[in-house]
């Protein structure tokens, strides 16, 4: 009995210490994880600056890709990788000269070939990584311009030879390009863009990915609408806009 009484307080003290240590470890892990994913987004933004598209494009790519992944019943882990890796799809553009990337008017065939290299260059940036997110980012950077019918680049892969994550981001990226304003074009309406995606099944896109995308159409529309609301609000209320003081 006496022994039991001596052991008990020690045991509880030990248990408390372990719990405290575990909590600290958990907090440290969370902080590292958050800093890591923060860097991922900021890194992705560098490439977007070069291309003069907006940061909201990155969040949308993540959102659309995640919805397609849900339509395909991919695991939570895969959706997590896709969310953080997909915004880095154009990271290779960092190494493409501005004189070509921002050139107004038509490109020469040679210049077009250089731009196409952003896929291989993006993959090179992540070569040899041990991080699961960056491994997925490497696959996406390399394969998001491949086309289901084999006419894409850089490898001209066909059908299911194209990695799944690449096939998903290909659709998300094109759909976003269709529905947003670019310096050279006005946006297509939501329904027109959906129609165009359907037309490209078996050509540009994997029909299974198109099916998964259409299965999530309701949510895709919500994301599309949300982005429009965000952009118009920012244009109206931004502190950068001299006519107002923000909210």
């Amino acid at each position, binding site marked *: 009995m006496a022994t039991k009484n001596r052991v008990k307080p020690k045991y509880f003290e030990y248990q408390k210490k372990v719990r405290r240590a575990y909590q600290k470890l958990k907090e440290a892990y969370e*902080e590292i994880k*958050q*800093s890591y*994913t*923060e*860097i991922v*987004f*900021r890194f*992705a*933004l560098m490439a*977007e600056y070069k291309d003069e598209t*907006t*940061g*909201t494009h*990155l*969040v*949308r790519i*993540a*959102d659309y890709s*995640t*919805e397609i992944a849900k339509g395909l019943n991919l695991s939570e882990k895969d959706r997590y990788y896709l*969310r953080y890796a997909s915004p880095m799809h154009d990271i290779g553009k960092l190494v493409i000269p501005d004189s070509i990337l921002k050139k107004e008017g038509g490109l020469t065939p040679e210049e077009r070939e250089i731009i196409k290299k952003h896929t291989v260059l993006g993959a090179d940036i992540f070569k040899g990584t041990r991080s699961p997110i960056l491994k997925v980012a490497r696959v996406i950077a390399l394969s998001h311009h491949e086309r289901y019918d084999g006419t894409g680049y850089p490898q001209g892969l066909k059908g299911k030879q194209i990695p799944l994550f690449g096939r998903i981001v290909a659709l998300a990226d094109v759909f976003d390009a269709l529905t947003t304003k670019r310096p050279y074009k006005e946006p297509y309406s939501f329904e027109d863009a959906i129609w165009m995606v359907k037309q490209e099944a078996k050509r540009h896109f994997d029909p299974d990915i198109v099916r998964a995308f259409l299965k999530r159409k309701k*949510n895709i529309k*919500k*994301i599309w*609408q*949300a*982005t429009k*609301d*965000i952009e118009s*609000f*920012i244009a109206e*209320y*931004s*502190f*950068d806009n001299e006519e107002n003081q*923000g*909210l």
Partner: protein
Amino acid sequence: MQVVQKTKNGVMVCYLKGEINIDTVSKLKEIFEAILKSKSRKVLLNFKEVEYIDSLGIATLIDFSKRLLKREGILFLCELSPNLRSIFGITKVDKVFKIYETEEEALKEFYGY
């Protein structure tokens, strides 16, 4: 996603936890609706434990801030987690909201209103 609400010096402080995304945003909408129906006009959202926010989450914040503004209310944000900082930064959302490093700092700012 979890939300804990506390009133501090007449300011409704909402502590948000988890992910604000297309699947969880309805809970946040419900809370915002309740706040708009209540008398609270000074609202502070604490994002310390929010891991991620997607387009729907951002649009919901914007909609709430617009409606609160119409009712002459004020919305401040504070203690953004690293992820939120980067997402608000790249989407330029940080240019439209008043964001404070600490809750204390934000609460002090409310005294002027």
